[in-house]
């Protein structure tokens, strides 16, 4: 690909601009104001929803399709690690234990 560097910089600036605005504007508008009650309730459910919306496809789907079989080692790892995550609520411990589990499972599958 022949990349004209001045044009490429314009592309990056465009991408940077449209990415930055959604990050900046809500917090600039809302952080120094009293947020309406209904919006407070709405935002209360955003973290739990976002986390689940990110996590579930990640572990239940392989190559854009639901895969609930044991060949989905990421899912098996998640099921095995879930009690630890729930009990300790410790990110780092969960990640490390899960990574070790995943390495072992991947070896077993080969």
């Amino acid at each position, binding site marked *: 690909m022949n990349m004209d560097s001045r044009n490429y910089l314009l592309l990056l600036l465009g991408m940077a601009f449209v990415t930055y605005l959604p990050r900046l504007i809500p917090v600039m508008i809302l952080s120094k104001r009293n947020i309406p009650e209904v919006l407070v309730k709405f935002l209360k459910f955003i973290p739990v929803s*976002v986390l689940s919306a990110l996590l579930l496809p990640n572990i239940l789907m392989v190559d854009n399709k639901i895969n609930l079989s044991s060949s989905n080692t990421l899912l098996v790892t998640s099921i095995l690690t879930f009690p630890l995550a729930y009990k300790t609520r410790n990110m780092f411990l969960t990640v490390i234990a899960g*990574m070790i589990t995943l390495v072992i499972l991947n070896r077993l599958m080969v």
Partner: protein
Amino acid sequence: MTNLEKRELIFGIKRAAPIVMGYVPVGFALGVLAADAGLSPLQTGMMSLLVYAGSAQFIAVSMLSAGAGYLPIIATTFLVNLRHILFSASLSPYFKEISQKIIPLISFYITDESFAVSITDAKEGNLAYTYFLGLYITSYLSWVISTVLGVTFGALIPNTKALGFDFALPGMFMALLCMQIKDRKTAFAALVAGLLSIFFLYILPGNWNVILASIITAMIGVLMEK
């Protein structure tokens, strides 16, 4: 910087550990794709520095290698990154004590992962601005550096999958999700949002699943609160 601010800075940096473990292999993989698409380490590093949004960068790189025009790439980037509106709005109550001058800097670093960690910590108690800087900039640097390393040395490392890094981000989301589930309502919201997210992945192209699933679930949440 006061002593408290220093402590919070260090706390923020420590909390970035699982994010870094997730970003390094993913950033590296992006760098490898960027090299295949004909981008130089400088061009790839500049994209990470200026845009700093993983999924949008993957899409941009694949659109570039398919020969797409710049306007479609910018438009797609905008759509894919619209979900940050929700993160920015959710963080705003916790930015009340933070100077209006620093907010534009901090908000630049909002990603899925940095949002998820900081919103969980923010709910536990007041956080100084230095916490956000520590967490956010550590994550940012790991992303920028790993993408550049990926372009430069991608050919040298055959398979990062064997090392289990695939679990770093899901594992982090799972631990954070456990912290967010406090009662029946939040457990129900988690179930609904996860299933909706998969549903939207099946029926809609692009990355609409997270934003649509979250908005619909939060609206159901508002109704449950009444």
